[in-house]
């Protein structure tokens, strides 16, 4: 009777809802709690918690509806409103779970991320914790399934665990301590992790590069883009499980508002991503460009190493001061001899050998007394005659300087191409030993840029030549701990060039490119690297294999930040380009999985996506449009709503 009365009172039947609680273990049977249809979600959680009899902080928990693959995140909604009946299987689970995150630098972090919010917001949380600004440029993707190699690789991979980090509450600005988010400064371990994120990684062993998965053609590149997660749905909805491994990458190649001081991690990770893109030939470049990239990598690696040791002083607030430290340090390190040389006499003199290759003459090297003053080399028959008129004077301003060196063969030549009215004069100078060579080489390089020996960069130039020479001494097989002196030039170039050239051949070429970058600071070098990367013709193109309406063969759609391009798969040529600013609208027909775009002048295109979901294409286009809106509003707040509007698709509306 009483039960009847209650029924009347509530006008609803009481029924059992099965809720499994993760904390009880996977084998434990789901808890049965009796509910009525007008019980709201918050009430369900409360009852479940009571019944589980576990005392802990439940604030991060939420209900997950397994069959529908959806979160029940609105505590005030009733079961009825949610459409939950007795057959529903719910699960009370934390919203934040640990995840293995592969950073662009291929460092693996284990951290707790939000599994319940849309991926877009999850990434905002991740980036906030890691102190990466502009999270909208990044996204998550599934790793490539590794095949057999997996066994031996997985063992050695180090995972940096930062699951102890506080959950980022969106909206607050992370406090900084010692130039890093306060959380990282708390323990030495986490501080190390931050350093790893903020400082570029040493060059990988050439074997590592060769072993890694590389895309060899445009089809494979297109397949990578099928692995992006959907920004508008949660991780759990997309089948990501606790401790799964996901890759964090810059997805939209439009890097807004980079501030070197505030973007240490962002810049470093961006650099790492571009570096790997080049090493793994994800983006193609010419040999000349590869050498510049190699030189920059070498330089960045070298400067970062020095900086790391400096960075241990806690007073360092930002990169700038670190760089200052670095400069001081480098100056202090230069050998006293060099210092004396530069201080007392801004002039070099020595017996060197000279050789001028001329057609039809095969004269060898001849020894003279050489002096180097300002930007000019003069030579005399002997030291005694140096007060007389020189045999010849050569002003090196604007000349080309190339090394012709073999440490093993004890050959230290400088090849000079000196421009004159009649053409370029080719001159070889042969030095006796490394010390002499590095000083004369440094002088020649400075002179070619119009600087004199008195220039402050002379000693560091000498040093960098010496350290570069040291690279030749080490055997290329040595792939143990990479220290400054033992970098293998093979680890600076992609496998194609590893195969094409021996390290011995590569060194002079990289050295040649290196002379133009050797004086850059760390940030400048990184930015230079990014600039050259961004100037590559194929930069910023994400490929998707599509089939255009009315066509019978697959083609490739390239999506960039300002345009779409259509590429003929067989030839690889760009057939057509459409720019976003002429785009009127784009629509996705989710039923037939077709994207239709209308451009100015009644140009209509439609295609279905072969390698990727329509949503991915849709999100790319919408995403880039979103990115282009950022410039105008200078505020730092992210317009999440607009992003979802532009990228969300039908579920979002």
């Amino acid at each position, binding site marked *: 009777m009483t039960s009847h009365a209650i029924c009347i009172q509530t006008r609803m039947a009481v029924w059992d809802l099965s809720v499994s609680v993760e904390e009880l273990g996977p084998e434990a049977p789901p808890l049965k709690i009796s509910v009525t249809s007008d019980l709201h979600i918050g009430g369900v959680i409360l009852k479940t918690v009571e019944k589980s009899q576990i005392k802990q902080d439940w604030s991060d928990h939420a209900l997950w509806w397994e069959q529908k693959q959806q979160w029940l995140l609105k505590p005030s909604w009733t079961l009825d409103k949610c459409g939950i009946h007795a057959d529903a299987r719910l699960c009370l689970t934390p919203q934040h779970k640990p995840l293995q995150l592969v950073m662009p630098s291929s460092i693996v972090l284990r951290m707790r991320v939000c599994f319940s919010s849309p991926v877009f917001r999850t990434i905002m949380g991740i980036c906030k914790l890691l102190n990466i600004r502009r999270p909208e440029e990044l996204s998550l993707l599934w790793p490539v399934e590794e095949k057999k190699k997996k066994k031996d690789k997985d063992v050695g991979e180090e995972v940096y665990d930062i699951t102890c980090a506080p959950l980022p509450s969106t909206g607050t600005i992370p406090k900084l301590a010692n130039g890093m988010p306060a959380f990282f400064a708390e323990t030495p371990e986490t501080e190390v992790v931050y350093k790893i994120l903020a400082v570029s990684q040493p060059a990988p062993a050439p074997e590592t590069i060769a072993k890694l998965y590389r895309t060899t053609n445009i089809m494979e590149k297109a397949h990578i883009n099928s692995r992006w997660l959907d920004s508008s749905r949660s991780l759990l909805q997309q089948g990501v499980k606790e401790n799964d491994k996901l890759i964090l990458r810059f997805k939209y190649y439009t890097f807004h508002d980079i501030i070197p001081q505030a973007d240490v991690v962002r810049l470093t990770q961006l650099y790492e991503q571009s570096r790997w893109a080049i090493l793994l030939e994800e983006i*193609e470049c010419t040999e000349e460009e590869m050498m510049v990239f190699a030189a920059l990598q070498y330089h960045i690696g070298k400067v970062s190493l020095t900086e790391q040791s400096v960075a241990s002083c806690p007073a360092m607030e930002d990169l700038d001061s670190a760089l200052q430290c670095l400069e001081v340090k480098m100056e202090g390190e230069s050998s006293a001899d060099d210092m004396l040389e530069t201080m007392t006499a801004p002039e070099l003199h020595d017996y060197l050998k000279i050789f001028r290759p001329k057609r039809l003459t095969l004269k060898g090297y001849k020894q003279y007394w050489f002096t180097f003053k300002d930007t000019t080399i003069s030579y005399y028959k002997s030291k005694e005659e140096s007060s007389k008129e020189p045999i010849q004077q050569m002003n090196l301003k604007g000349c080309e300087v190339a090394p012709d060196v073999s440490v093993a063969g004890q050959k230290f030549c400088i090849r000079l191409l000196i421009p004159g009215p*009649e053409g*370029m004069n080719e001159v070889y100078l042969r030095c006796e030993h490394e010390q002499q060579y590095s000083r004369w080489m440094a002088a020649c390089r400075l002179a070619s840029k119009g600087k004199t020996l008195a220039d402050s960069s002379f000693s560091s130039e000498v040093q960098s030549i010496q350290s570069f020479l040291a690279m030749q001494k080490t055997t290329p097989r040595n792939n143990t701990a990479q220290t400054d002196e033992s970098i293998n030039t093979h680890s600076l170039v992609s496998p194609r060039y590893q195969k094409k050239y021996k390290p011995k051949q590569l060194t002079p070429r990289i050295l040649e490119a290196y002379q133009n970058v050797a004086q850059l600071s760390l940030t400048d070098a990184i930015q230079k690297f990014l600039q050259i990367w961004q100037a590559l013709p194929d930069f910023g193109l994400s490929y998707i294999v599509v089939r255009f309406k009315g066509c019978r063969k697959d083609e490739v759609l390239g999506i960039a930040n300002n345009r779409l391009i259509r590429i003929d798969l067989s030839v690889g040529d760009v057939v057509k380009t459409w720019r976003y600013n002429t785009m009127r609208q784009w629509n996705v027909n989710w039923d037939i999985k077709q994207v239709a775009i209308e451009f100015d002048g009644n140009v209509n295109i439609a295609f279905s996506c072969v390698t990727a979901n329509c949503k991915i294409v849709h999100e790319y286009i919408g995403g880039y449009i979103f990115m282009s809106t950022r410039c105008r509003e200078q505020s730092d707040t992210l317009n999440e709503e607009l992003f979802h509007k532009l990228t969300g698709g039908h579920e979002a509306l």
Partner: protein
Amino acid sequence: MDDIDAMFSDMLQEMDLLTQSLGEEAESAPLPKPPTIPGPQEMNFSVGFTDFNASLHDLEDNDLDALMADLVADISATEEKFATEKDTLKGSAPVAPIPSQPPSNLSFPGSSSTLRQATSSNSIAATPPPPTSKPSKEELEEQIKADKIKLALEKLKEAKVKKLVVKVEIMDGSSKTLMVDERQTVRDVIDNLFEKTHCDCNVDWSVCETNPDLQTERGFEDHENLVEPLSTWTRDTENKVIIKKKKDKYEVFRNPQNFYMWKKDKKSLKDMKEKDKEQLLEENFCGASVIVPDLEGILYLKEDGKKSWKQRYFLLRASGLYYSPKGKTKASRDLVCLVQFDNVNVYYCKEYRIKYKAPTDHCFILKHSQIQKESQYIRYLCCDDEWTMTLWVTGIRIAKYGKQLYDNYKAAVRKAAGSATWASRSIQASSSASTPSPTPKVRAANGHAPQPAVETKGSSNQTSFPPPPASMETLPPPPPDPMLPPPPPAPPSTNKVNQFPPPPQFPQSSFPPPPMDDLPPPPPPPPEDSELPPDFLPPPPPIFSSCGGEALPPPPPDPIASLPPPPALQNFASAGGAPPPPPPPPPPPAPAPAASKPAGSVRKVAPPPPKRTTPQLAAPSGGDLMSELMTAMQKKRTQ
């Protein structure tokens, strides 16, 4: 104070140059020249003439006038300087007249305010507010000593600045000769030429070098230094510097679509909206790195050392010019780099069909700027048509200079916009100095519009109007006439001298009458003025402002007041060695009449004579340019 220092150093540098070129003259004149003037390596030679003598003959009258004006200015500056120093050294009577300057001003009297005070103090008593605290003698002396040391140091520094006398040909066959300072950019030089020629300041004006041996022409970029490339010319070069309108100079910024969307039909791009053009520029020039137009296509390449031209498929990348070898794909990895742009420049070529049997006449070459003759180190390329050539040359320039080009363009546009309000004159019309045309408008274009008085420079004639530095520029030789002669009507008081030394010093300044801070803004101030770099001392505009101040007298009405002559006269006098008594003089008689005339009609006052004189003088005595000029000067003086 910094400004003053800068001005001062520039002044000194002028003087140094002068002293060096003066030779004996200079030595006889007791110049405050530090014994340790360094490099004999700093040079002062003219470009565009086979030798100085010839160059002198080549010079047109007005060129000579201009040059002469420069020199006179230098000399008077030097002399005055000397006078100043001498006087102050003597520690003679610091009976500072009304506007006594703070001591620091003593030897750098350059600021416009000072000048103005000076001018006005002639007629009126105490306009200037400056503190009247008279420095004690000791202080003064100390200050002077310090200044002298500074001066010596500055001179050491400045002595190294290289200058060239450059003759710039104008398309109508006439030419202008000007001195170019090592630190001046091409933009500065163009602005100077605008000043001298009253032209329309169109953004297309371009200073080019031509090389008859190679039959090439290259427009210098606005940010380049002119002296550097010119210094690498050989002694006997036939190369020329010309100024002309080159439509392709900035075409890429007017119609970026033609370059960045070159694959599309040009007609369809014709009506592109301005907004879209801007966006294109924004995308390609304002990002983290400049995007180079994705040019590719078949060009002819002259084979090394052979006469034949081979077709190759070329691609332009930011890192260089590449071609894809036979049988290979266009993939980046297979490309062969023909040349990278760090060390080379791109030149248009003429008539290579005849010279090198090129397939067409639309050729360009890439070479190191120092190479002046045919060489295996030059890359010769040939295009099917002119537009293709423009496309590639522009693309290469973008790859080489990047954003700098865009900045140059924006600066040029600003400049042109500033001058647009002024009647555009064809360069020819204004270039010949003898044209008596100058209407007020022309003068305006000249940057001197506001000037009520005679000082419209630009043409030769106001002889009767002596010292105003402004006029000196163009009408050099005559002025000395009135200047030197009779012991000044009003011998300057020593401190007077101190206060006014500058005016005559920098007559060149007359072109760039820029930032006259406290001068009543000239009615229609051509905005470009402010940007105008001084003729050959770019950094310190203030100096000019001072001179400018003098040249463009603030209140037009009173001719006497506006006349700056007195100081000049005094200085000359003192330089002459007569340490004159002090009374701060009223305007000297000589200039006064001249002044009154000019107020009314400008040109007619003082016409032709001066022009003739110099050349005549120059021709007979076969010395080098400088010494000839000097003799001319001397003659003038002794008259």
